[in-house]
Each structure stands twice: as C-alpha cells, then as structure tokens.
C-alpha cells in the first residue's frame, strides 16, 4: 500500500518536475511547485463527532500536517447527529470558503452519498475515512471491517484455547451500521470456515452503549456460565462488557476481545490491566498519514474529483498482553499537547 502511494507521489512530482522549463541544480523547483499546489488549500474534516479518540487523533495530526504545507484545516462537530453532519457538508459546499478536500466519516452507507456526489461536482475531493459508504469517493482511508472481524475471531479463538468450552458471545453494535455488520460477517466467516467447533451462543446488541453492553453481558454470562470468550464490537462500550465480566468474577475465564483506535487509556492501559484480552487496533497515526499522503496527492494531481476511488486500508493487528509494547498505542493527551505546543 505504502509502495503504491510512494509511486503515486513520485509520479506526481515527476509530472510537475517535467513541466518546469529549466532546471538549475542549485535551485530545486519542486518545493516551489509543491507549495504552489498546496498553499492556502482548505481541508475540512467532518467526523460523526469530535468527542472521541479517533476524531481527535485524526484532527491533531491533520492539523499539524496541513498547517505545515500552509493550508487551512477546519473541523465540524455534528455531535453524532446525521442531520447536523449533512448540514455541515451542505454549508461547506455552498459556502464562500469552499474546502478543497472534504474528509468525511460517514455514519452509514447512504446518508451522505448524494451530498458527497454534489461536493465532487463542485470540484471538491472527498475522502472517506473509517466508515465505508455507498459512494465512489476519491479515496477510502480506514479499516477493512470484514478483515477486522476475522482478526477478532482469530484472537478470541486463540484466547479461549483449544481446551475451552468453545462457546463465544458477541456484543454487537447495532444492526444498521456497516462497521457492525461487516465485523459480524468477518467473525462468522472465520468461525464457520476455520473453527466450526466454536459456537456463538448469543449475539445481543449494545447500541454502542456501555450500560446496555454491561446488562446484556451479565445476562449472557448467567445463561452460559461456561462461556470462554466475548467479542464486543467497540472499545467505547466494551467497558460495559468488561464490567459485567469483572462483576461476575470471571476475569480469568472469559477472554474479552474488542476493537478500537489504539488510544493509550482506551486500549493499551486496559490490555495491561487485564480488562481486555485482546484489542484489534487500527494504527491511527498510520491511518492519518495515509490521509495526509492522499490529500497531498489529490491536490497536486489536477484530476477531476471522482476520477478514481482507491481503497487505502489501514494495517490492523490484534494486540494482546504478550505483544504489548510501549509504542503499541498513541497517547491522545501527548498528541494534543504537542499540537497545542505548536
């Protein structure tokens, strides 16, 4: 993936380089061309909300990078409201200070599709992040959710071990979000094909809410006391499932797998203290730098928005206590302090 990007970048630089009429060895024209292409460009990030680790991580790194090339970086905080998000995009498209690149975290497959098409028609590059949508974006940067499900399934099977009850519980998000649906598909694919002896005994929804997650997990643990592993679909509510396990005194017998953005307090600290058995983490820094690269590429490419829609999946891996390193996670506080310091 990186290779591909590098090639793209190289191609871009080459093309600008070729366009330059005269080449002085002492005077590399490329930085000037780069600056000309990027200076003053506007990048707008519209996540589902700004109040969670991923969005804050993206925005911290993006801000640093965009500021560095002399662009303007802005965010909008719809606070999980689809209508407010749609409005933010609409206003961005129609505003005087139109963004050049729009980075959207779509709440579902369809809600913003039409708006994003409109944005492309207005000459705005649209980059989808983390949540896929039914739309040909100029790039999708984020997780392959099916793959993530597969990794979770592998992790839980490993965590349960061959001599366990081989009973697994799922705490799904909801039945609507692509992220939840694809995760489920990935998990089931692995379990059915590779480990047919593992059974899913219950698969309630948490609605992404920790309290609900705790309540359904409590019931699940009572109904199937010998459960060996649980996959909760998001670290945002997995604290609930963890609480239920803790309260039932089953920290040692139930292996909890979840997924998250790899923030230190949300993920690594909890792996370290045994709350989570494994977390399938998206490498946020890498994901954001992918975004940065594609932004830079798009702004210099001169191509029409909607020309190509590459998928740039972020590398994911399951982190457990065994492979936990000090640099496995990123620290939101440090990142923010860093950004503010500048």
């Amino acid at each position, binding site marked *: 993936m990186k290779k591909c990007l590098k090639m793209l970048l190289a191609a871009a630089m080459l093309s600008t380089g070729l366009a330059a009429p005269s080449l002085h060895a002492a005077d590399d024209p490329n930085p000037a061309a780069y600056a000309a292409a990027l200076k003053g460009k506007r990048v707008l990030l519209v996540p589902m909300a700004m109040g969670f680790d991923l969005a804050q991580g993206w925005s911290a790194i993006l801000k640093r990078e965009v500021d560095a090339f002399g662009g303007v970086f802005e965010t909008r*905080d719809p606070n999980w409201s*689809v*209508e407010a998000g749609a409005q933010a995009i609409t206003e961005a498209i*129609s*505003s*005087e200070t139109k963004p050049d690149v729009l980075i959207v975290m779509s709440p579902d*497959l*369809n809600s913003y599709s039409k708006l994003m098409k409109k944005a492309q028609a207005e000459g705005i590059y649209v980059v989808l992040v983390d949540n896929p949508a039914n739309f040909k974006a100029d790039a999708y940067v984020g997780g392959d959710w099916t793959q993530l499900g597969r990794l979770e399934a592998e992790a839980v099977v490993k965590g349960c071990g061959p001599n366990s009850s081989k009973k697994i519980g799922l705490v799904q998000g909801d039945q*609507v979000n692509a992220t939840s649906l694809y995760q489920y598909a990935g998990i089931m694919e692995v379990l059915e094909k590779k480990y047919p002896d593992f059974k899913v005994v219950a698969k309630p929804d948490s609605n992404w809410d920790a309290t609900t997650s705790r309540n359904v997990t409590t019931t699940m643990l009572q109904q199937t006391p010998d459960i060996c592993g649980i996959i909760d679909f998001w670290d945002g509510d997995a604290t609930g499932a963890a609480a239920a396990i803790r309260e039932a005194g089953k920290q040692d017998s139930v292996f909890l797998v979840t997924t998250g953005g790899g923030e230190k307090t949300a993920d690594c600290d909890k792996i370290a203290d045994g709350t989570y058995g494994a977390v399938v983490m998206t490498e946020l820094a890498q994901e954001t730098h992918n975004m940065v690269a594609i932004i830079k590429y798009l702004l210099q490419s001169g191509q029409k928005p909607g020309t190509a829609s590459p998928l740039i999946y972020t590398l994911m891996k399951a982190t457990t206590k065994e492979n936990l390193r000090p640099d496995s996670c990123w620290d939101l506080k440090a990142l923010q302090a860093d950004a503010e310091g500048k």
Partner: protein
Amino acid sequence: MSFRERLQAWRYNLIPDHLVGEILTKRWTDNAIPFLVLVATVAAFGTSIPGFFKPFSLQESTRQLGEFSIVVTGLTVVMLGGGIDLSVGSIFALATFAAVSGFFIFELPVWAAFLMAIGTGIAFGALNGYLIGFRRLRAFLTTLVTFIIGRAVFDILVVNYGAAIQTSSASSDVWDFIGDGSIYRISIPVLTALALAIITHIALTRSRPGWHVLAVGGSRRSAHNAGIKVKQTVFMTYVYSGFCASLAGFLIACRLSGAGPGTGLNMEILALTAAVVGGNSLGGGRGSVVKGLMGAIIVLVMNNGLIRLGYGTGTNQMVIGLMLAIAVIIDIRWLKNRHKVLNEVYVAPVYLKMGETQSAVPGSASPYALNNAISKTDYIGLGALEGPEDVILDRDDHLYCGTRHGEIIRYFAPDYSRSEVFAHIGGFPLGLAFDRDGNLISCVGAMGLYSISPDREVKRLSAETRRSWTSVQDDARLRDPNDLDIAPDGRIYFTDSTKRYDAHDWALDSIENRATGRLLVYDPKTGETKTLLDGYRYMNGVCMAHDGKSLFFAESWACRVHRYWLEGPKAGTAECVIKDMPGYPDNINRASDGTYWMAWLGMRTPSFDLSLRHPGFRKRMTRRLPQDDWLFPNINTGGVVKFDETGRIIGTLGDLTGQSHPMVTSMREHKGHLFIGGILNNRVGRLRLEGADEGWTGPLSYWGERA
C-alpha cells in the same frame, strides 16, 4: 396661556403617547422578543460567517431549515390545540423511509413515493390522534411511546431494506429537482415551508377548524361546553402534525436520497425547543405559526452557525440552553406583567383648557342656575331598575328603558307600575329611538347598533365602520356606541363616544380627555355604516332638529353642543352652537315647544378643570394611585337643560338634594310629562311639565300619525 402650559400642550398633545399603549394591546407584540432574538441571532452569525448572506449559500443552507420549520409548524398546531407531539422525529424518519423505499425499491414514480410518505405520516398521526383525541390518553406519554415504536419500526426497516435501497439505480429528474432545485433562487423546501406556513396561518386565524383548535387549546372544557367537537379537533391536530413531519421527511428523502439510522434522531427535542423559543406556550392557547417559524430559524441558525464556526460539541447545547432559559423567562414574565405595563402606559392624558363658564349657582341670574325642579318626581320602577341610561315612550304611552343587565324593560301605561322584559340584548342598551315602523333602535354599549322589532325580534344593524388608515388600534370596531337618532329618510345617526376605551371605562376616557369620539351614520338601505365626524371629546347625545335638516350632538368632556347639517349650504359640516357649559352634556331630545332638552350627566368642578391643564399630573395619578383615589369629573349633580334652535339656553332643572336624580343621562317629553333616566340611577322619574302640550309625543313629532 403661560409658557408652562404651552409646553405642556405641546408635550402632551403633539407626542402620540397613546400609541405606545395601543401597540402594546396588539397580539403581535407577543412576537417582539422572539423577533429581536431572531434578528440578533441572524445578525451575529451573518457577520461572523463569511458569505453567510450570499444567495447561493443561503439557497443551499436553508434547505434543512425548510424541512425543519415544516416539522415545527405541525408541532405548533398540536401545541396550540393543547397537546404535544414527541413522535415527530419518528414520523419524519418513517416517512423518509417510505419515500426512499417507494422510489428506490419499488421504483415507483415520484408522486407515488410522495403519497407513500404522506400516507405514512397521516396514518401515524391518525394513530396518535385517535389515542389522544378519541381515547383521551395523555399526549406526552402516548406520543412518547409511539415515538419509541416508530423508531423501533424504522430501525427494523432500515436494517432489512437498507441494502436494497443502496443498490438501486432508480433516478428521476423530478426527484432531483425537489432535492436540489430551486425557483427564483429559493430552494424547494423553503418554498414548501413558506406555503405551508401561510396556509396554516390562514387556517388557524381565519377558518372555523382553526378557531376550534385555538378554542380547544385555550380551554378544552369551555370548548367542549360550547359544542365544539373537541375530540375531532384534537385528532385533526395530530394528523396535521403527522402530515407536516412526513412532508419534511419526503423532502429530506429527495435531498439525501437515503435513509440511515440517524435520520430524524433527536428531532423532537430540537423541534420542541424551536417552538418554545418562538414563544408558543405549552398546554395550548397561545402561540402562532409565525412564532414557530421564528423559533425554527433561531434554533437552526444557532445550531448550524456554531458548528460552522467550528465550535466543539457542547457549545451549541450550552448556548441553546441559555437562550431557551432567557427567552422563556422573559416571555413568561412579559406575559404575566404585560397587563400591568399596559395599565400604566395606556392612559395618555392630553392638555385642555376649558373655557370660562357662566355660573350655575342657584339664585344666580344665569340661565344655568340650578334649582330643585326635579328633586320631586314620580318614581317608576324604584329599586327594580338598574341603569336606565335612556328612556323612550311609544305611541301607546308604554315606557322603555335599558338596564345594566342587558335587557330592555317595558313599563305599561298608564301608571307604569307593571313591567316586563321587552327584549334581552346581552349588552348594556344605551341610547334608544323608534323608527318609522315602530322598531326600537338601540345603541348597545360595546356591541353596536341593534334593532328590536315590535314583536321583539332582536337584530344587529351595525357593529363596525370603515377602519381609518392611520389608526394603530382597530377603530373599525364600535367600542362605545352611545346615542342615536333617526332622520326622516330612515338613516340612523349615532355616536361612538371613544375609540380608546370600552363603554364601562368611560371614566378613564374623561381623565385622558383625548378627542376620539365619532359621529356615524347607518344606512338601512345599504346596511353600511360610515364615519361622518371624528375627533370629539366623548361624543354623546344626538338629536334630530325639528325640521329634520340638521342634528345636534353633545361633546361631553368639552361641555359643548354642536350642530351637524344634513342638508342646505352647510351640509356635511358641524358648528359649535353651545360652548363652555358648566355641566357635561349627555343625551339631547326634542321638546314639545320646538326646543330641545339636554341632560347633564355631571357638573364641572374647578379642580378637574385645573387638572385638565396638567396632563402630567393626571398621568402620574393613574400610574401611582389606586383608582379609588383618582380625581374624576363630578357626576353627583346633574340636571336638565332646555335650549332652542340657536343654542340659547332657556332654563335648567336640577336636583339640589342629590337624592332623586343626581346624575341625569336622558329625558323624554311625552304628553305633558318629562321622563328622566340616569345611567347610575335605580329609577325613572316622571315630572309633570306645567303648560306643555298634552298631546305631544316623540313618535308623533318624528313620524306623524300612525300610518
């Protein structure tokens, strides 16, 4: 005139203080506070967001506003009817899904998708309406539950059919036009919202079903007792709300071409906030579509503006919470204290210097000298009558007079001891007159001009005149129709004493002393009422001259009598014939010897005359003192004055005892007797007139022998 008085005259007669009070009586002043908030909000965000007011930006950014205000309009109607609809968000989402599924899954034409959406909304609204209207369940709880049901159904549908919608390739120009198009740079949702708001506003304020909604919201029990179909009305408000929410749902379906789990989430709180910030009261009775619209704009501009400016989660809520609290508190305090403010500022006295008058002291040589002539009369209906403002006798010598209870009482000749209720009017009958056909015409206080036929059929002749262009207050309405008389051609000339006060507040008008009395004419042929003269200080009695070519009318607070010409070279003009009387004139009637009787409702006092030259004093008085301590015109001594065609005073009859007829508002001569009435009296007095024509009666004088 001293310099001080000249200053006072300028200050109080030229500066239109009274308009402040009149503006405050307007219902639309309720909207002042939300409107100011609206202006402030739009101005604040308009200046801080670059390009906010650019046509293209406005056209695009107001699409959501259009949809949202449609929802708020529906919710406003429900709230006006005394209910609440928390399920608007669910209806909105379900309608969006219906439209999207109809268009993308079933690949129906746009109109069919539209009907599916609207049908969904109306069905859902009908469910709410049935439960709350007909089954009488509590609105809050019921719509709360239906909201959850609707949301659950929507989630299930989205899960099961979301993929099918996403993979469909249906498209249509009409669909895209509704979603993205605009007419004259105004987007379709905004146009729809405006049209809907106008229709709803007209329906609420100008149609029977709309009035029923307001009546039910104002007082459900009274509406029920008044025979309004409360259940149907409540039902319809919810259906309407469902319709509105689904209309908005259809529009967003076209705009976004999709429905996701977040569609319409938390909309109910935002819509409720909007309706409330606009100034609609919960529990019904007060509010309007305009308020709802203003609230919608305020809330959305604020919401989107803060997001647009990049403020993080929470800032929005913080600002909206503060704004809601402040708006509601101001609104509530305003509503509660408005009548107090109004009481304080409404009375706006003017300067008037009354002219020097001749003495009325008994024994003085002046023609106004009072005596004891009417202190001894034969009492009719003593103690049984209350407030015979005017008295009149018919051809058969029966006596008629109005009472404070809204009735016209008939006392039977010859001894007037027997009585009956001749007619029940409802308002306080003041001036009375018989027309050619023997119909009794009456000016009914605060109601208008009424006619009572000999067989007692009551008919309203007129309750309004043409509105003048410059008035703030609705001066088409007759607030204080006072006296009337009928010309030989059948036209009815009558007075409306003041435009500023209702009949029972005549005393306030005397303190204010503003010239707002009018002379009006009602033409029975066309049924139209026209204003002939305007700007007199409490225009009161009217009397047709004996030849029928002019009429006399009294201007009470100025103590003057004028003559208005109906025919001849001066037709259409008025001239003052008596001025600076020592008493306040009331009704005027014909006398048998070709002269006229005039009642004095009270006598001028030096103190009140002085106060008229000190409007500031009277203003402070009405603001700071309880009404009992106010300085009023003296109405404890009145009298009857006789004057001739030229305005020469012939003589005065008085009651120095103050016991029989202290305040006289009317008198009628009939067959050698004078019948005396007073609006605050409890009797009618009959006085034998020495040397009067024993055969003369009013009907004879006006209409001749019975046809």
